[in-house]
């Protein structure tokens, strides 16, 4: 048996979503590609148990809305993370508790996390951010989305993403610097 030296390129997410309108099962390929990433982002924010529920609901909502997917974007992950972000809004309390607990653990003497006490203060400051700012910040820092991808994910103008991120970082800077002078405050205030 010989291998085809030029296998056909894998269909893009946009191709698969379009295809799923005719053949719903095609959406499973989108699921297989991105479920772990959506689950991981949810896990970071709301914990492993809730992540199962959040990721599943995000994909159900995505399936329901797929006829409105903007096919000019070949990568559906930002769209899926945006839907997951919406789903997670109902878990704000758990997320805040989790962030606070995580902040305490990384600041503890036994922690191997980078940043030590400053890290703890930074996470505590993240927990205190307004929801809209925290969403943008964590999509950027923990899901590695670009400004443009965050704008797509949250369906807001890119200028709104920039301003929310700027406000979030300014707030982190003032909160965390007040409590942890080891943080590079001047740098942190720049966007």
């Amino acid at each position: 048996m010989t291998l085809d030296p030029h296998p056909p390129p894998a269909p893009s997410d946009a191709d698969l979503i379009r295809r799923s309108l005719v053949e719903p099962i095609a959406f499973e390929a989108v699921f297989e590609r991105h479920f772990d990433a959506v689950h991981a982002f949810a896990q970071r924010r709301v914990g492993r148990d809730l992540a199962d529920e959040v990721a599943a609901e995000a994909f159900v909502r995505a399936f329901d809305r797929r006829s409105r997917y903007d096919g000019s974007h070949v990568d559906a992950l930002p769209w899926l993370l945006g839907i997951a972000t919406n789903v997670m809004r109902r878990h704000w309390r758990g997320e805040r508790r989790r962030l606070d607990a995580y902040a305490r653990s990384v600041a503890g003497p036994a922690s191997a996390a980078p940043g030590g006490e400053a890290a703890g203060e930074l996470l505590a400051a993240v927990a205190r951010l307004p929801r809209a700012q925290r969403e943008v910040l964590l999509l950027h820092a923990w899901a590695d989305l670009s400004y443009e991808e965050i704008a797509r994910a949250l369906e807001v103008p890119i200028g709104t993403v920039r301003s929310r991120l700027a406000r979030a970082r300014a707030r982190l800077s003032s909160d965390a610097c007040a409590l942890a002078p080891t943080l590079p405050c001047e740098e942190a205030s720049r966007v």
Partner: protein
Amino acid sequence: MSDLELLRRLAPPVSAPDEDARERARAAISPSPGRPGRPGRRRALRLGLVGVAAAAIAAGAVVVASDRDDSGQAWAAEVVRVAEAAPRLLVDAPGWRVVRADQFAVGDGEMTFARGDAVLELRWIPRAGLGDRGAKLAEGADVDVRLPVLGREARVLGYPDDDEFRALWVDGDAYVELRGAAPDLDAFAALLDRLRRVGVDEWLTAMPVSVVRPAARAEVVAEMLRGLPLPPGLDVDALGRGDVVRDRYQLGAAVAGRVACGWLDRWAAGKRAGDDAAMREAAAAMATSRAWPILREMQAQGAYPDAVWELADAVKGDGTVVGGKELRLEDAYQSALGCGVPAP
């Protein structure tokens, strides 16, 4: 190290989802029958059997049903019946307008009001279907107060670290929910104060421009059909009639879908009968679909045109729908385009 870099490094470690969780999630979106652990059979059946037409309709179905008749009655009886069962609320403040109205039926509907970036979402459902929604919504709320709204008492909920408020109240047989962002409770209460109940005519007139005016329906359908090859037996008059009107996207899907379904019916029948001429005629008609103005207009708003074009490509060949698991056109087109769904 900047705060952002530190935050990146502090991303909590994650582990892969376990297979049970993955399988449950997969089953929830899978239309294929018989998977173990399926959580939502009703939903899976709906997704599997109804296909794109239902998905498109669920995504943006509308709304207003009305017509002016020769007797001078402003709106058709069905329209009035539907409107009378709705709370018929508008925001009586400068700049606020209705930008969306979805899934509207007797006693069940949604509307979105907007002014600039500010948005209010109104939902009403039959009171009988309320369940314990109020109690569930109140979980975690740090604002839970009673405020007057339109002569009734609304439960108003707000949440810490969130600028969204919700007002819930009962209006006759309807349970009404209004939610929107506001800087504080007073600002949200001020918005509640601006809600006004209006008559049927004023309420229907306030519907967004995306809703095709019922009186103009026949004209709009004729415009949408312009330039399209009409399949034998298409009832153009029936498309132009009816009390229930969808927004322009949905009406466009119904009109273009009827045309495409007619040609694909002809292709499938020709294949069964060995009628090559019928198949060629249908394929030639479908080959023009990429130039259909209504599909080109709809392309920017959703994927219905892509489904039509994918099927047009299939009948250009041997009927195999390419791009994924191999499908035969005759097994796929009706669910894909909603051919079995009655015209609106």
